[in-house]
């Protein structure tokens, strides 16, 4: 259920040359599942900025975001104490009930953040997730230690081989024996590669340019085997069985 409320920035931290971590305080009661997103109103920008939720508790929410344009560049300049109008509780999020005991969590680049809350929830449910993270270079890696601190098995690949396994997250699959399910978020070529390389069912989080972020404008529609869906409201997470590439 969509909720509109004001959050206050508690802290901002630069993680890599393009990734930032923003911690906010406010009403997180509308957040219901890992993999959901929020939509931030920024002064001087007409459309809100949809950002996935990295983690949250009863009072705070952490967003990791990549500076990709003027809006996110402006976000990165906001000091602690800034109040932001935010819509929370957007999107379906991941369903952890289907994971089995040993799910793999595949995150690529800016798609890594929602995997953090997902790993946290799965571990709290007594499961043993393996987290497979893909980045372009060693310099772009973030949150590796944070994932390890949750108690997850963490494997890292870099496209240029400057850290961990050389290649993509799919090159890490052989390192995880007997995985039971897959959860993915990242660029579409990565999602497709995981889709093809895994022999289990899974859930994939998609990205699209959005107008409203809550299902009203039909700006982010896609076709699935079960009919047309809105990435913002019926997604962003789609089941493997319904995806049409």
């Amino acid at each position, binding site marked *: 259920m969509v909720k*509109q409320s004001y959050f206050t920035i508690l802290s901002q931290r630069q993680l890599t040359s393009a990734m930032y971590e923003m911690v906010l305080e406010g009403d997180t009661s509308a957040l219901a599942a890992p993999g959901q997103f929020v939509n931030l109103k920024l002064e001087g920008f*007409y*459309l809100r900025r949809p950002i996935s939720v990295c983690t949250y508790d009863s009072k705070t929410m952490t967003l990791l975001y990549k500076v990709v344009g003027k809006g996110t560049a402006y976000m990165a300049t906001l000091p602690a104490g800034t109040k932001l109008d935010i819509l929370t509780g957007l999107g379906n999020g991941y369903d952890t009930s289907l994971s089995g005991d040993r799910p793999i969590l595949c995150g690529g680049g800016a798609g890594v953040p929602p995997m953090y809350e997902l790993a946290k929830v799965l571990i709290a449910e007594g499961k043993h997730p393996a987290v497979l993270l893909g980045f372009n270079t060693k310099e772009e890696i973030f949150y590796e230690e944070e994932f390890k601190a949750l108690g997850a098995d963490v494997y890292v690949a870099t496209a240029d081989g400057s850290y961990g396994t050389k290649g993509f997250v799919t090159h890490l699959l052989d390192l995880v024996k007997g995985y039971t399910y897959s959860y993915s978020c990242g660029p579409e070529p990565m999602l497709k590669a995981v889709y093809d390389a895994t022999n289990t069912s899974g859930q994939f989080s998609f990205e699209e*340019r959005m107008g409203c972020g809550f299902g009203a*404008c039909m700006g*982010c529609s896609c*076709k699935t085997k079960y009919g047309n869906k809105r990435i913002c409201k019926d997604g962003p997470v789609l089941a493997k069985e319904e995806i049409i590439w």
Partner: protein
Amino acid sequence: MVNTKVQLSSLTLDNPVIPASGTFGFGYEFAELYDINVLGSFSFKGTTKEPRFGNPTPRIAECPEGLINSVGLQNPGIHAVIAEELPKLAKCFHKPVIANISGFSVDEYAYCCELIDKEPQVGLIEVNVSCPNVHNGGMAFGTDAVAAAEVTRAVKAVTTKPVYIKLSPNVTDIVSIAKACEEAGADGISMINTLLGMRIDLNRKKPIIANKMGGFSGPAIFPVALRMVYQVYEAVNIPIIGMGGVSSADDVIEMMLAGATAVQVGAANLIDPFAAKKIVEDLPRAMEQYHISSLKDIIGGAH
């Protein structure tokens, strides 16, 4: 106590605030957020004879004080709207709804309007001859006075409810098209649809929108919409539903002073799902501020 009631042909609205087609779906999803019966009415998602997926994505581009959309009339088709969407709406909305109908031929407009006219939930039919996002239809009918009149006559011949023609601003002379619709029997004019616009991605050096162009809406177009409503009000004797960038109770009053009997809120719903409700709630305050006791008395007041 202020009076916000207005009269759109046979339809009495508790207030003039109407979420615009394409920004409010079929209403029931907004009813999960607030009681949508506080609205004057709303105009449902543009509906065609056949189901449509619409245009490829990206369909949205941001602009200063607005956005461009190129959704392309995604809708489940008139039969599914009647069989599935209207029953869902009936559970949460107890006022007459405005049916927004689009088409690709005069026959298609008439076919859909005749069907929707029979639905008791529908209080008024808004005929969209101005969608900029589909080829061989939509806006082609709204940019030509003869074609707009032809659609109007065809729809009027098969309907009993008030028929409002939704006009495109992408014309040299919107007044002549409004007059042609009036002469063809239109009960009212709904205006304006979006302005044809475009953005280019500087990194890719290509249009942001997959369909290259789309409809520009938002506060940036409010002065253009207001001017057109003002001009059409001078030329016709039928009610006008004014829209284009309306985002506040003040905007509603300004649009009514230009000549609108009721006012639609579009892009604002996409930025704030509670926008239309907030405007309704703020209207009495704005009316008191501007010394207005009855909204219907200010229609066209700026002339």
